[in-house]
């Protein structure tokens, strides 16, 4: 698979390789942080290019917030290093405090300074010179012109986050860190704000590291997404790559809705309920049991009573449940052995519960994950 | 300049110290506080005390400081002005004004002739619930010490237990006890004589009077306020002048007329409202013997008063 980052076999002191330094805004190498017995961040390698928007996606407790706090300088790593804007900010013999890292930060809670007005908040990180001009620029950028004199408690949740973003952007940081900045907002506001934030960051040319547990959010606005589990990065890819070719079952299940259909390898192909699929690059020997990733929309159904010939009995499935998703409907199908999976159809082509169907996939080349031979 | 630690309140002796400055040109730096606190202060400071003179409310505190060797002997011309029973035998402190123990009584419920001749009269059950005292007060404790010396430990214990059996009200100090007598909360209280006169000055209708014991009764003890000079005094010359001033005619007149105390030098008379020292018939007792406070404290604790 193409997804994982190449792990360079260099050690920390040589971290700045002049050839890729210019376009790299940020990177970590073998970054590790332990709290007692728990390794919260476990040898993480990440590269973020200048102007790139990278999401770190993972379930709660996976270590993504710790990763962010390490980058910001609120925690001291137990191993590995961090480089921001071509400068080592954390390493074996180096630990720059947060105020010297040129990093902007936006938290879930806006964390605005309650004693300062909007202009005061935005201007907090600015030198006196040019301050007014830059504040005006940012107020316009985040669309809050005219509200400079408001106090934080006089703003709506969305406006507060805009101010927080403007405040982070004001001193031209080398890297912006977003820690679940939308999760405290309601759904409509959230989707509108994240589009706006992406646009603001793009027009400011900012490099962004964005931590979230919401995969929809991550896929929607990121250039690349790093999936994290138990302190480790499982995969870093573009959103579509991640969706279509997850490197393992965890990533597959965490990003989007996944059907993992079991089967057995025969003649280089995996035989499943819904057809045969190529078993990787011939890597899998005959007889190995494996799972095939099929997204609900990659499958389609045919009603058994409309078929010209009778299907094999073991491939006849029953619609047991339907879940309405607006433009499409997910049908939960159950096999004679009790295995359940989902198939999506347009809302206009839904099939009644209880109907007997067969399913097959349009794609032939899909990710295949061998099951451990136990 | 002279530094005074005064266990006597500024209200009482402030004007007098100003008079001293006026008379001699010597500035007085005075620190006012409770006598026991001032004594503890000097004891804690030890050799490093900035004080020159300790001006105390009662002989016990002076004795305690003298016992630690912190007071210097006074010159004979000062000591000579005062009777032996009002000064330290080793000459480390001298009394400057006298205060008599009295029984203050409420004049609405009692008359002079109702009062017993001896403090032992108050152990009678007829006084049950009618008595007030202030056992944490220094003058009271000096009186108990006198009682022990004059009547012996057993009689002293007998008296304390007798009063205790009459369930006396326990007051914070002499003023509070007198206040209670005046309001009729209690009928009698064992206090010093001069509190009444201050009370009368503020409120001439005060329903209280002093009853003096006679015939050498321990209840007629006359104690003193006195002064001593610290042996670390830097201004010992000025200090001696101050103590001499306190025993001079001007100061003695002040004590007689302003604080209603007994002047202690020959030829000075107390306020006409007071019986003279001779009339009181104070028990024969050397005040320096009153320094055995520990024994008194133990006794008070044993009887369950403290």
């Amino acid at each position: 698979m193409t997804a994982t980052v190449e792990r360079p076999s260099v050690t920390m002191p040589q971290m700045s390789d002049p050839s890729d330094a210019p376009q790299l805004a940020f990177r970590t190498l073998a970054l590790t942080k332990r709290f007692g017995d728990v390794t919260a961040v476990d040898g993480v390698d990440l590269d973020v290019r200048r102007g790139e928007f990278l999401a770190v996606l993972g379930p709660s407790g996976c270590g993504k917030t710790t990763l962010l706090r390490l980058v910001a300088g609120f925690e001291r790593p137990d191993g590995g290093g961090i480089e921001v804007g071509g400068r080592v900010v954390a390493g074996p013999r180096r630990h720059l405090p947060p105020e010297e890292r040129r990093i902007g930060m936006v938290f879930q809670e806006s964390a605005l300074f309650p004693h300062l007005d909007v202009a005061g908040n935005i201007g907090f990180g600015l030198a006196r010179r040019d301050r007014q001009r830059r504040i005006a620029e940012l107020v316009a950028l985040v669309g809050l012109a005219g509200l400079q004199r408001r106090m934080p408690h006089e703003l709506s949740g969305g406006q507060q986050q805009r101010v927080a973003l403007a405040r982070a952007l004001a001193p031209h940081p080398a890297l912006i860190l977003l820690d679940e900045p939308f999760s405290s907002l309601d759904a409509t506001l959230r989707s509108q704000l994240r589009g706006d934030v992406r646009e603001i960051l793009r027009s400011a040319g900012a490099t962004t590291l964005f931590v979230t547990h919401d995969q929809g959010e991550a896929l929607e606005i990121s250039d690349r997404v790093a999936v994290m589990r138990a302190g480790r990065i499982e995969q870093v890819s573009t959103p579509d790559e991640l969706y279509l070719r997850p490197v393992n079952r965890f990533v597959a299940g965490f990003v989007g809705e996944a059907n993992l259909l079991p089967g057995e390898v025969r003649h280089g192909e995996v035989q499943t309920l819904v057809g045969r699929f190529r078993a990787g690059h011939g890597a899998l020997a005959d007889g190995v049991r494996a799972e095939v990733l099929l997204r609900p929309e990659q499958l389609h159904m045919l009603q058994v009573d409309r078929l010209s010939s009778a299907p094999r009995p073991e491939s006849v499935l029953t619609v047991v449940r339907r879940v309405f998703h607006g433009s499409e409907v997910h049908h939960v199908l159950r096999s004679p052995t009790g295995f359940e999976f989902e198939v999506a159809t347009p809302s206009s082509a839904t099939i009644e519960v209880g109907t007997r169907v067969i399913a097959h996939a349009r794609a032939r080349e899909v990710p295949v994950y061998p099951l451990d031979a136990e | 300049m002279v530094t005074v630690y005064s266990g006597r309140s500024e209200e009482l002796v402030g004007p007098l110290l100003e008079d001293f400055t006026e008379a001699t040109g010597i500035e007085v730096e005075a620190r006012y506080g409770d006598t026991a606190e001032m004594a503890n202060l000097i004891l804690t400071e030890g050799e490093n005390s900035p004080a020159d003179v300790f001006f105390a409310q009662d002989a016990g505190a002076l004795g305690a400081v003298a016992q630690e060797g912190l007071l210097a002997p006074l010159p004979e011309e000062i000591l000579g002005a005062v009777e032996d029973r009002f000064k330290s035998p080793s000459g480390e402190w001298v009394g400057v004004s006298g205060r008599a123990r009295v029984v203050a009584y409420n004049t609405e419920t009692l008359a002079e002739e109702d009062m017993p001749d001896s403090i032992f009269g108050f152990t009678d059950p007829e006084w049950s619930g009618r008595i007030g005292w202030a056992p944490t007060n220094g003058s009271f404790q000096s009186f108990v010490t006198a009682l022990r010396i004059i009547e012996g430990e057993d009689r002293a214990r007998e008296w304390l237990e007798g009063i205790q059996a009459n369930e006396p009200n326990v007051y914070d100090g002499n003023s509070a006890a007198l206040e209670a007598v005046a309001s009729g909360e209690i009928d009698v209280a064992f206090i010093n004589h001069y509190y009444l006169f201050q009370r009368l000055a503020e409120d001439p209708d005060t329903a209280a009077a002093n009853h003096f014991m006679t015939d050498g009764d321990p209840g007629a003890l006359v104690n003193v306020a006195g002064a001593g000079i610290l042996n670390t005094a830097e201004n010992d010359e000025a200090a001696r002048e101050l103590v001499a001033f306190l025993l001079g005619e001007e100061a003695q007149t002040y004590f007689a007329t302003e604080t209603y105390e007994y002047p202690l030098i020959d030829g000075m008379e107390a306020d006409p409202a007071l019986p003279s020292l001779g009339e009181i018939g104070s028990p024969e007792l050397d005040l320096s013997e009153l320094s055995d406070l520990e024994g008194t404290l133990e006794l008070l604790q044993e009887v369950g008063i403290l």
Partner: protein
Amino acid sequence: MATLTTRRSASRVPAPPAWLTGAGALVALLGLLPIAYLLILAAGSDESAIALALRDRTLGVLARTLVLAATVTTASVLVALPLAWLTTRSDLPGRRWWGVLSVLPLVVPSYVGGYAVVAAFGPRGTLQSLLEPLGITRLPELYGFPGAALALTLFSFPYIVLSVRGALLRLDPAYEEVSRSLGRGPWRTFWTVTIPQLRPAIAAGALLVALYSLADFGAVSLLQFDSFTRAIYVQYRASFDPTLAAVLALMLVTCTGGVLLAESRLRGRARYDRAGAGAARPPATVSLGAWRWLALAFCSVVVGLSVVMPVGTIAFWLIRGVSAGEPLNLVWDATLNSVLASALAAVLAVLASIPVAVLAVRHRNWVGVLIERATYAGFALPGIVIGLAFVFVAARFLPAIYQTLPLLLLAYLVRFAPEAVGVTRASLLQVSPRIEEVARTLGRRPGAVLREVTLPIIRPGLIAGGALVFLTAMKELPTTILLAPTGFDTLAVRIWSATSEGFFARAAAPALLMVIVAAFSLTVVLRRERDR
């Protein structure tokens, strides 16, 4: 929006900067100085001291004193909670004035308050004479436990009012709104949502009340209650032997440890920061409706007893004395000295409380906890112990500052720092650490973050803490008598020196001046409290 977070394991606490630990440790060491002094003295004690300490009577006094402290604390909470709520969250008519009046009792010196309680409720007091025509000839016994509990409650409950008021004003209304939306009525919401959030503030105030009751001497002795502190004074006054007193004082210190432990438990482990501290709206005002009359009656009774009664007593002294020809005794220089020393003490205590509170809240490791707890050591000790401890050290080793204003201020600091620490700590708990972290990323060092962000945010708390210290330092007596520069007269000393000799008229003017200065400063402070 708001969240109530309890996560963050202890292992994630960042190490504090060295200067912060240093400053905190300095304050703590100062606070422990009296205990060190007591230990030195007690080391020289013999069996008689131990026997005295362990005799039944001493232990009985100790037990009764603890019961008194518990009673006073409970009663104070019951009085203070409704007052704090009514004066911040309801439409009580004239609530700003009730706000000032409900804190004013703090300035009444306990030896004046004690006289007032006796004058009003004593066996021959005002109440008795009012009831006499109704055939009531005997009131329930005031002297002893009931009177001491009453007097201490009346003059110490404002500690809780002040800390709870601050917390109520800073409370994010979102929590209460959520509760209401979940179907809980206002009453249940108050008990199940508001009160639990006020717990740290209640605990902080209650701690001060409890320790104050342990250390008070004036009120208990006027009300004839044999408290432990009184026993300590008796040792000092009667035996001139500081060893015995030291042994007793150390027993009191041990009890203080117990009280501190109880408070830690009560305070709870949850963190109460308002996540988006910036987002808080001012809380809504609750309309009392017909309950208003009951509320007004309640406030009137409390203020009547704790302010009008003592002030009335003082006024009575003044009128009686002046009409009998006594001088008015307006002591302006003593007033000036009082204001100066108390104001400086307030500033010093607030400054000292900052590193202590930051260590305890932001870097919750054992050093921080120890430092914070150590500052409380001085508050439960009788003033005379602290005073003599400073005399002992300074007269020997620091003659240059002995009997100077700076030394007096240091002693005030030891005595009153806990008042400021408690309030600063409670304010700090409500500031999200995220806010400080943002400031770090915007280029500020920890010191600058403290100066430019944290302190401005908790300013109302700092002012309230300063006010508390100001008021209590103004009435402080034993340390002032022992440590003030010679000739440095204060109002407290004037009042005490007059009342102790029965010069009530001459005590009246200084006492009134004290109340006026206090009322004035409180008005200013409570106006600032809202101004944020």
